[in-house]
């Protein structure tokens, strides 16, 4: 790295430092800002999707609807026995009356568990192994045999379109990151070509005095690296502020699915890598641009 950037003050004077004069640092700041937001969106979609997946996709809720509470309890006991005996089931959890009440109160009001209405019994079932249409059918047969009034509600079924959407959005985020990288590389190429033109005579003399292409390239890549450093710091600062404000708003919403899109420390590390990669990308592109342009000269 030192060989890459470590050049003497005298060498620096060769190409006068017009740093921060051009638009490149500002464009890089915008690119880094947008890239960090795109990466953050992609990461939080991914962690959200996997959280939902882990919690819900292997789960089936069994509802037992019966005319009166005695019949309901009878069928519930039969279903529980059947589930416990089945190898398809990893775990079952019958919702207690309190849990049911909690679940239904917002919809039906306070004291519905008085005998006025017969509330359906609910069992959460976690399937052992992967969820397929076949396992679902077997489970259904098993339950309907002992409880004709039971209804199966596999979560994965209504989750699938959401997963597909989340996946598409993640690909979109990745695509955005690629586009932004290409645009950043393009602005670096244009800027360096302009600088090469401006300093053409100086470079020509340096060549005739025996400069290598790498010596010339170092002068430019250092300038670009500094510009990119400035742009990255600015862009990352703005992006950090934006993400902080967004996460405050999400916290304000309370629990729920949004919570599962939280970024962990590994995700934050990836976000920190964005401006670093930006600087490295800009520097390498600058070096390549110079070396390729010089290769056309004698």
């Amino acid at each position, binding site marked *: 790295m030192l060989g890459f950037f470590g050049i003497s003050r*005298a060498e620096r*004077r060769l190409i006068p430092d017009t740093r921060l004069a051009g638009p490149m640092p500002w464009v890089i700041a915008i690119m880094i800002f947008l890239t960090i937001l795109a990466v953050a969106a992609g990461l939080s979609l991914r962690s959200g999707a996997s959280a939902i997946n882990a919690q819900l996709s292997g789960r089936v809720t069994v509802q037992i609807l019966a005319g009166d509470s005695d019949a309901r309890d009878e069928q519930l006991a039969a279903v529980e026995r059947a589930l416990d005996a089945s190898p398809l089931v990893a775990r079952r959890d019958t919702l207690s009356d309190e849990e049911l009440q909690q679940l239904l109160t917002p919809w039906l009001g306070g004291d519905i568990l008085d005998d006025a209405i017969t509330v359906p019994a609910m069992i959460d079932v976690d399937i052992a192994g992967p969820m397929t249409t076949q396992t679902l059918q077997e489970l259904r047969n098993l339950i309907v045999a002992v409880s004709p009034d039971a209804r199966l509600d596999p979560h994965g079924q209504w989750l699938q379109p959401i997963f597909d959407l989340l996946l598409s959005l993640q690909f979109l985020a990745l695509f955005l990151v690629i586009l932004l990288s290409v645009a950043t590389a393009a602005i670096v190429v244009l800027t360096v070509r302009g600088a090469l033109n401006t300093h053409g005579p100086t470079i020509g*003399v340096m060549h*005739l*005095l*025996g400069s290598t*292409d790498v010596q010339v390239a170092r002068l430019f890549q250092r300038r670009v690296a500094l510009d990119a450093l400035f742009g990255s710091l600015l862009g990352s600062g703005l992006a950090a502020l934006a993400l902080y404000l967004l996460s405050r708003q999400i916290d304000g919403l309370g629990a729920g699915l949004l919570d599962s899109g939280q970024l962990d420390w590994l995700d934050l590390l990836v976000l920190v890598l964005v401006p670093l990669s930006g600087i490295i990308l800009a520097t390498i592109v600058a070096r390549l641009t110079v070396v390729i342009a010089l290769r056309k000269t*004698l």
Partner: protein
Amino acid sequence: MQEIVTFDNVGLRYGTGKEVLSDISFTLYPGSFYFLTGNSGAGKTSLLKLLYLAQRPSRGLIKLFGTDAVTLTRDRMPGFRRRIGVVFQDFRLVPHLSAYDNIALPLRVSGMSEKDLDAPVREMLDWVGLADRASARPATLSGGEQQRVAIARAVISRPEILVADEPTGNVDPEMALRLLKLFESMNALGTTVVVATHDVHLLARIPEAHMMRLFRGKLADPTGVLRHPPKPEARNPDDVLPSFPPKDASDYFRQGPDGS
């Protein structure tokens, strides 16, 4: 003696134009002093460009330091160029660098430390009489002062070959002599010197120098002796260059290759 430069049947055309140099063949020996003369537009600068690797020939063979220079790969060019000091006809000073930094450039390019290069740069500045203009930019120097900076830059790294294209065009006769003395002392230290010039007075100053004369892109060489100058040990200037220095300079430049 091992030759340091060999041109064999070299031709040069710029783009698709007609050949500005044709059938150029000569050999330079290390430690010798050469003058290259010829009318304006005869091709002196073009020939020197081939020599200092700023241009590839359209045809022919060029050997530099015993190596084929025509097929030299890009990565080997810098090493060769560092062994050749050049005073460009148009100076080519870096405009935003001071006289000091311009003169220091070859040493910096070759990786010398700042500590080591200060003394030689100051010495060179002194030599060309510009010690008090060390921090001046080229634009604030007179033509002759710029030329002296250009010369100092060409000789500071003690190149094996020194190529000077009209190095005395912008200085008074006294300074021209001084500069010629500098070339001579470089030559005495073993540097092969090639000076392109119109200045006949200059030619007379170094009687032991070899002469090459270009006329319309060809080496004018009626006797065939100039084309391949004899090796230094064998040479006797009085035999080899019978008409040198010329009795009448203006006649000299009017002559064609066949002496007509």
